[in-house]
Every structure is written in C-alpha cells, then in structure tokens.
C-alpha cells in the first residue's frame, strides 16, 4: 500500500487528462480540415430551414432561471460537506450521524420553505 501520497502519484490522472484533451482537440482539428465546406448565405444561417431568424440571442432572460441557479449553488455547497462525512462515517459513529441530520434538517427546512413559496413552480 502506498502511504506517501505525493503529487507525483497523480501522474496517471495527468496522463488520462492529457489523453482526453488530446482526443477532443485532434477530433476537432481533423473534422474541420477533412470535411467538405460549402458556404452560402443560407448555409451560414443558424437555422438552415424554417422561419427566418428575428433579432438576436441577446435578450434578457427571466429572473426565475437565476433563482434556480442560486438555489442549485447553495445545495451544491451543502452536498460538498457530505463527502468528508461519508468518508469518516464509521469513525464518527452515531454522533456524526446526528450532527449531519441536524445540518441537513436545517437545510431541508429551507428547501421546504422554497417549495412552499412556489419558487420551483414553472407556470
């Protein structure tokens, strides 16, 4: 068993990362250079067929999306706390379990509040 835990242990991860990135980059370059290219006004339209495009994509969006994104971030951070807890689950025993129940309980109360407020309702 390896007990030293040095940064060099990450070499396999790094190689994997480079391979994944390399594959994507190569595919993009190859598809761009190999495939045939036909350019015309119709071909360059975002939607080649169907109704003509009106305006552009830069219109203000509803605040509801943002609210959901914020709630997502909050619960995302909450979930982060579960990782170190789960790793230590056995060692912490019942106390740890109660601690986490308390933490989750407070946040679930917040979740209930959010649902009752109808924030997640999408008319």
């Amino acid at each position, binding site marked *: 068993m390896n007990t030293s835990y040095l940064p060099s242990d990450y070499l396999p991860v790094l190689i994997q990362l480079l391979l994944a990135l390399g594959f994507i980059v190569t595919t993009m370059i190859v598809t761009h250079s190999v495939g045939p290219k036909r350019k015309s006004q119709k071909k360059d339209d975002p939607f080649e067929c169907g109704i003509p495009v009106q305006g552009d994509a830069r219109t203000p969006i509803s605040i509801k999306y943002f609210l959901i994104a914020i709630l997502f971030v909050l619960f995302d951070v909450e979930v982060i706390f579960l990782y170190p807890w789960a790793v230590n689950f056995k060692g912490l025993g019942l106390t740890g379990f109660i601690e986490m129940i308390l933490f989750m309980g*407070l946040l679930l*109360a*917040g979740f*209930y*509040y959010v649902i*009752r407020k109808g924030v997640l309702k999408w008319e």
Partner: protein
Amino acid sequence: MFPIVLLSVFGILLLFLGFLKSRAILLPAALLFLLVSLAVNFIDWNKTYLYFNGMLLSDNLSMVFTAIVLGSAFMVVALSGSFMEDESAQPAEYYGILLFSLVGALMMIGFENLIMLFVGVEILSVAMYVLTGSDKRNLRSNEAALKYFLMGAFTTGIMLFGMALLYGATGSFTLGGIRAYAVNPQVGLSLLFYVGLLMLLIGLLFKVSAAPFHFWTPDVYDGAPTLFTAFMSTVVKTAGFAALFRLLSISFSGVYTFWWTILAIITTLTLVAGNITAVYQNSFKRMMAYSSISHAGYLLIGLAALGQQTKQAIVFYSLAYSVATIAAFGVLLLVARQRNAETITSGGSSSESFDAFNGLARQNPLLGFAMAVSMLSLAGIPLTAGFWGKFYMFSTAVERGQIWLLVVAVLMSAVGIYYYFRVIIAMYFREGATAPIRVAPFYRYVLVVATLLTIGLGIAPGLLEGLF
C-alpha cells in the same frame, strides 16, 4: 450559547409562520422569540463556559453584549408594526432574517476561534445585504444593497486573507493560541503576523464603518428602509465592537505598541470625517448615518486606549448609543410616514429632511420629547446616558495618557452638538403645520422605555456597574 441555538430554530419557525393566512401573529411571535432568547441568555450568569471544543465563550461580558444586542433587536422589531399594513412587505422573511442575523452577531460576540468570527461576520453581513435591498421597488434601496454587497464581499475577502496569514504565522486559529504566539515568540514575530493583524482589523473596521473605510455608510444607511438602518447602526455596530474588543484585548494585547498608533489615527480620522460631514447634511437620515460614523470613532477611543476601563466604557457606550439611536429612528419613521402621506396630497419637501421636523413638538409632545432626549444623549449632554458613555470613553484615554486623542474627541463632540441641536430647534422653535401623529400604543411604550432608559442611565450611571 442557548440564544444561538434558539434563535436558529425560531428563525425557521417564523419563516413557516409566514405561510399562515393571517399576518397578525408574526409580530407578537417575533417579539416573544426575542424575549425568550433574552431570558435564556442569563442561564449561565456568573459562570464561564467554553462550548464545543473551545469554539464559543460564554462569560458575563459576552452575556451583557448579547443582552444589548437582543434588546436593541427587540426594540427595533417592536417598531415594525407598519410592515403589517404594507401589501408588498414580506414580514415573515424580514423577521426570520433578522433572527438569523442575530445568530451571526452572537457568534461575533462570543467567538473563541477565528473561524467562528468569520462565519458570524458572514451571517450578519449577508443578512444585512438582503435587508438593505428589501424595498425592492425603491431604486435607492437597490443601489444601496448592491454597493454594500460589493464592498462588503471585498472586505470579507481581505479579512479572510488576514486570518490565513495569522494562521500561517502563529499556526493557530484560537484566540489563546494567537495570544501565546504574540506574547512569547520563539524567534521574533513574523512579518506575516503584523500584516494578518492589519488585514483582519481592516475587515472589522469596515463593518463598524470607521474612516477611511466608511464611504459605504451614508449611501447604505440612507437607501435602506429606516427600520433596518436602525438595526444596522445598533446591532451590527455593537457586535462589531464586541468582536474588536475580544480580538485586541485577548489576542493582540501583547503587541499593543504596534497597533495603538494605527488605531489612534483611524479614530481621529473617523471622528473628524463623521462629525464635520454630518454638519453639511440636509437629510436627517443621512445625518444619522454620519453620526453613526462619529460614534464609531468615540467607541474606537476605548480600543486605542485599551486598559482596565475599556470593557465598561464600551458596554456602556454601546448601550447608550443603541437606545438613543433606536428612539431617534423610531420618531423619524413616524414623521416620515406622516410627511409622505401629506406630500401625496399637497407636495412639499423631502420626508426625511430636517424641515420635516418643523413644529413637531407642539402637536406631538411625546414624539418631540423622545427625539429631544435621544439627540441630547447622542450629543453627550449631562443627565443623559450619552454623557456618561463619553465620560467613560474619555477617561480611558486619560488613563493611557493620550491627551491629544482626548482633545480631538472633545472638539468633535462640540461640533456634534451643532447638528444634533438643529433637530431640537426645528422641533421646538420652528413653525410647521404638523397634524397630530397617531402613535400605536406599543410603539409609544418602546419610545417611552427608550427615553426613560436614556434619562435613567444619565442620572444613575452606576446601575450597570455591578453587572460584570
């Protein structure tokens, strides 16, 4: 410790009570919750406990600060009856966030570990950003919230950086650990320690709006709904000074010679900037914002001249200042609402300017008197609590022999008298068509209690001495 637990639960309860059809239960429930928290605060009286592996300290001093903070919150909430009439207001959320923010304030009062201080500051600040912007349709409220949030987030970053540097230098987050390092360094104090201390101080001084970190204060206090301005200028300030006092008196008393000059310069700047700028204000609310800056300056005197009397001076001053400020904002709330109602029919000057108070005392002797007493107290006139607050503060400076600080403070108090008396003159000696303002009975009690407390502490300042 007990108030922290209770307030967290009560906050959630209040949020859920908001789902009921009737709003009438919210205000009494919030007041009851605050009273219960205030009562359980004293369970540990005369005992000293360290809770949760030395995270939170509960001793008489922290309980007294807790009582001041909870009492101020109680009075502010008691003045909030107008939420019930406003259709667009969300009282359940306001009270819930207020109670949660008190959790943060109590953490700042009793922290024993810098992590606790940080979480406390964050809870209090986030709650304040939200409440500042709670008047959603008011552009100035939105602007204030955005300014406060951006600057506050930036300073929180500086504060956190300071804590990290302190940890790097001392290897400890606890107050005791940092003290041990500062008092007895093995190879001399690291430069990182000094930089960390400075950055931590900058973060906290921003929160209590000391110059030169005060530029957000007038806009935020002016833009926020008046009730939350009252909360900010009392609870946040008291909690901030409790935290500063703990930090400086416990962890950093060993390096007093390093920070006292810096703090003395900041004190002078704060006193001058707050008092001189307040003179030029036409809006009462803005004047109160600068006045709160200047009072931060008076409170800082006690820290710059840290000594035996500092503890008592800070407690007394924060109490006197909080009570007077809440009474002043309470009267302003009523007057501004009356003027707004009049402006709709006739059209006149701004509802929060000094002119709004013209002739107030004739038709509304109670409101006039409450306002006059709180202005006298803020100005530091004898027979009010404010006088003794300033007296204790100035005597700490004398004790340390910092006479020039004392001279500046006395001069600036003289300047302060000018702008506080403008209100009194407007109320008693100017003509103004003020119809009698209807004051709800409970509202009246709060104003009467605040006035009596100010006068009572002014006549017998020794009442509090035996407490801690």
